[in-house]
């Protein structure tokens, strides 16, 4: 039969297979390239210290991008992820403050913060999956709603987080920066999650919702679970932003939402669903962070920084998409 079938496969087989297995490879290449670029403009930027700084600054975005990835898997989107982050941020800061800022208070507040994130995710899930409203508009609406709640809890940015909390986040444990533990924990969590049935089901729903329904998958609960995961990771992102900023800010997450969506796409996931990796999103978030620092290290005049930043994101996006498409075609 060998001669009968003429398929375009086989030629770029190795590269193609590699990309199929690790679709985040272009994103990884871009991160490495940006790191080198950073190093070129300022060798200092590759120091252990500044890498740690980069990580602790962008850990929140990394988590938010991961949160976004799980809904994007299912072909949905969550425009309220940043608002959930804001809401959880102000909620835990206020709670920690009110309960005195001790270790017990911090842990209790974090637990409640997680629950709050999950509750927001559940609300989004019900609105989008069960009530069948358009995800993009529905979550835009809930984002306003969540921001409103955050403003009610803390009308003005500024309440400080307990020193215990942010010193731990920014500090070291056994000589290693705490944020590396977070990264390690995150990687393990992602590995575990990637093996769950839920992730496969989310991807199947995102691939073709009708097909998944006809295959007998419980589509509505699966999509709701996607939003629950999103809420959970958004809450984790809020913890990081709280650790990094050491204060509450009801509007802190607003701008991050679209960055999280961009990170997902930069990481090689399809916004239409059914295709992607969380590792890619992680790298995508770092890409955005690195672009910001490249712009800075290049010495771009401040009035041009936004322009260059936007341009750079476009270029990177194009490079990633082209590389992926060429290798896959």
């Amino acid at each position, binding site marked *: 039969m060998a001669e*009968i079938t*003429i*398929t375009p496969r086989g030629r770029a087989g190795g590269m193609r297979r590699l990309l199929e297995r690790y679709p985040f490879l272009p994103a990884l290449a871009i991160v490495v390239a940006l790191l080198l670029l950073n190093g070129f403009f300022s060798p200092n930027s590759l120091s252990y210290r500044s890498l740690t700084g980069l990580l602790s600054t962008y850990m929140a975005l990394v988590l938010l991008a991961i949160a976004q990835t799980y809904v994007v898997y299912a072909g949905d989107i969550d425009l309220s992820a940043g608002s959930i982050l804001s809401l959880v941020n102000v909620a835990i800061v206020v709670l920690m403050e009110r309960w005195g800022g001790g270790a017990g208070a911090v842990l209790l507040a974090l637990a409640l913060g997680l629950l709050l994130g999950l509750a927001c995710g559940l609300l989004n899930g019900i609105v989008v999956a069960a009530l069948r409203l358009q995800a993009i508009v529905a979550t835009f609406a809930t984002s306003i709603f969540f921001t409103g709640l955050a403003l009610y809890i803390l009308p003005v940015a500024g309440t400080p987080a307990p020193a215990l909390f942010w010193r731990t986040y920014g500090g070291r444990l056994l000589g290693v920066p705490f944020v590396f533990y977070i990264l390690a924990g995150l990687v393990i969590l992602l590995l575990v999650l990637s093996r769950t049935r839920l992730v496969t089901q989310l991807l199947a729903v995102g691939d073709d919702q009708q097909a998944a329904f006809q*295959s007998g998958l419980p589509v509505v609960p699966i999509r709701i679970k996607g939003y629950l995961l999103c809420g959970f990771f958004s809450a984790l992102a809020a913890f990081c932003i709280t650790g990094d900023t050491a204060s509450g800010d009801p509007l802190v997450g607003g701008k991050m939402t679209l960055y999280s969506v961009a990170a997902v796409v930069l990481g090689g996931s399809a916004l239409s669903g059914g295709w992607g990796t969380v590792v890619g999103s992680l790298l995508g978030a770092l890409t955005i962070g690195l672009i910001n620092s490249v712009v800075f290290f290049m010495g771009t005049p401040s009035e041009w920084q936004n322009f260059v930043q936007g341009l750079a994101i476009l270029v990177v996006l194009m490079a990633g998409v082209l590389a992926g498409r060429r290798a896959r075609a």
Partner: protein
Amino acid sequence: MKKLIAVALSTVASIVISASAVNAETFKIGLSNGWVGSEWRTQMIDEAKAAAEKWKEKGVDVEVSVQSANVDVPGQIAHIRNFIAEGVNAIIVNPNSPTAFDPIFAQAKEAGILVIATDAEVSSPDALYVGIDQTAWGAAGAKWLAETLGGKGKVVAINGVAGHPANEMRVAGYKQVFKDYPDIQIVNEVNANWDQAQGQQAMQNILATYPDVNGVVVQDGMAAGAWKSIMDAGKTGQIAATGEIRKDFIDLWVKDKLNSGATVNPPGVMASALNVAVLMLQGKELKEPAKAGQYGNALYLPIPFIDSKNVGDAAKQLEGKPGYYSYTSSLSIETRKLFSSECFHWLRGPSLGPRFPSHRNGRSSMSKLKLSGVSKAYGATLALRRGDLEVLAGEVHVLMGSNGSGKSTLCKIIAGSVRPDAGRILIDNRPVTITGPRSARAQGIGIFYQELSLAAHRSVEENICLAALPTKSRLFVDRALLKQRAARYIRLFEEVAGEGFSADALVGNLRPDQRQLVEIMKALASEAPILIFDEPTSALDRAQVDCFFEILRDLTWQDRGIIFISHRMDEIKAIGDRVTIIRDGETITTLNLAETDAASVIRLMVGRSGDMPASQSSAPAVVEGKDGAAMTVRNLSGRGFRDVSFEVAKGEILGFGGLHGQGQSALLRAIFGASSISSGEVLIGDSRFDASSPRDAIRRGCAYVSGDRGRDGVISGRPIIENVTPIHYLRDRLMIARPSKLRDKVVPALQSMHTKFQSLFHPINSLSGGNQQKVIIARWLIDRPDVLLLDDPTKGIDLSAKADLFALIRQLAAEGLGILLYSSEDAELLGNANRILVFNGGSVSRELTGADRTRYNLYQAAYEAA
């Protein structure tokens, strides 16, 4: 492939007996049982008899006479001698000795009798052994034990009857395995004569003597006894021991959480032997000569094996059976796969195995699924007025009706994706309510979706198992189990799946036919008792269809009810038992396919008898080519085809034939400018024509109609008029058009095709597939093209629409168009094309003209290089 056929043919001489026995479909088969009195043997005989009954239901008269010796070799020889004298066609023996029967088997063979041994192997070269490999049986349990013990420990063996061939082979099997584990020590071996009480006693003694034993190899019924002793001694958690897949043992296993791994010698081995015998008597051939085993005459059946991971499934399967009931399998799909005939029978002519007449009487006509008076309306449109359907257990029930007649709605109602407005649904004579696809699945309904329900970015195996992903601790996907489950279904098609198909390939990267196979596998994996296949063969090639049909036949053997929809009459006749015809949302009638013919089915279906399409046998040729070439193609190469040259005259219909995906579509699309050409040239008339885009090709007088309407034709969701006019806009360079003027052009074009539509401004999606295709064709009729490229244009459209379509094509040819027609249906090519180019591997392997245009030549040319 040729090689395989040669191998298959060579086996005819060695195994299949003389043709004289084959003329009547009545077979006498003698069963000689070695001894009586064990429940296993009773089950074995019962199942063999049941298998014979099944053949009778399928219209093959199999008479069985059973003789039981009592552990007595001479007695058994006497039985066989009686059978020979009686003139049976085949003898199936469960022998008491491996060697003692050689002379009598030689006599039987001389008398033209097929001899099959089962359960225990025999040394006679004149017999065939059909059963499990006892050595592998012994090894399977030992392997499990060695792995469970982590490769070290003290093991005892409790064996059956010393000196019995099966026992000796099993012992050899486990010894072989333990040789690879030097740290496993066999501290003692006991013979307990396959007796449960003796097994229990032996285990008690062992535990008293060797308190530190942690592994036990024990066979069959003795396992239950041994485990009782282990449990009495309170050592359940400390000892791992083999078991057997028998109802009472499985119950014990599940209840007390034993650490066990179990095989079984299925009592169905004799039934399998009987089935093999009947198939051979019918003249079917083994795929490969049976030459396994120590005597070189064995055909080994698969050995079932379970461990604590899947014991739950086994328990579910054996629910409600008596305690002595052993897990069994007979004439499983795997067994049938032993025969070569399934994928190649067409090479030897049309007759293929038993035709199963469906005059069922009494007990056998068990209703699997019954729908009565089911109706469904969408707004004012009545999609289904009165749907009645009864599917019996063990039949392939064909559902026929032109597109839009309501059969898809009926299927969707059964599958749960549409809720009916009224009517009753009964499954196994119990009324049920189906609330959705999940509920349908839960009630035992599996469906193959015509539009495919696959996730493109997931692998083949994930797609197959998607609906019920196997999990560990209910959270994580159990990859190993998933692979194993999927492999079962992939294996069924492995010979016909083609290049690039593997368990971990992404579905999106597969060819359309391979994707369709995945959807079939997915439907099969539901293991549902009621299966619906809605046009499962539209993209498959001949070999794939044959392989699939063989599997369908196996499913009917398992008493499943199968609903089958296809627009190919030859397929329907090949696989269907009964047919229910639906017209205009109403069930017209149900017929036995054996008692009817294609013409009357089609007449019932279309409800008008006068203007029938010319049947396949009628004179194929249409108009002869007029002077001058409409299109000339020279040495054209591109992705998917290479070095193709031909000329199509004005007024000629040039057919493209061959297996699916041999470059026909790729070539047509390249000519139309939809994909690139790497070398060669195309001429329209005398001027060179290399279309860089479809837009260009259209302007130069090319038309292209594809069977993949969704991708290439339909502007989804837009009104019919907008779907007819785009070509007109382009060719006339229209910027502004008055609707009334357009209407004057659109309506005649649609009417020339007998298109049914309510208004020009209804969305095209409101039409059925056949009518949508007519709209697509109509768009080319306003401004006549010079060359018409037809890329499998009738895919998925009903017979009356096909007839309309071909009438039009012939008329267009008569008006002087050059027409290139690729069709996956040979009848369409043979019936309409003046010449046929057969494609193979991207180039033309043969040209058929005049009297050469026969089905045989077409097949032969298509398969030549394979």
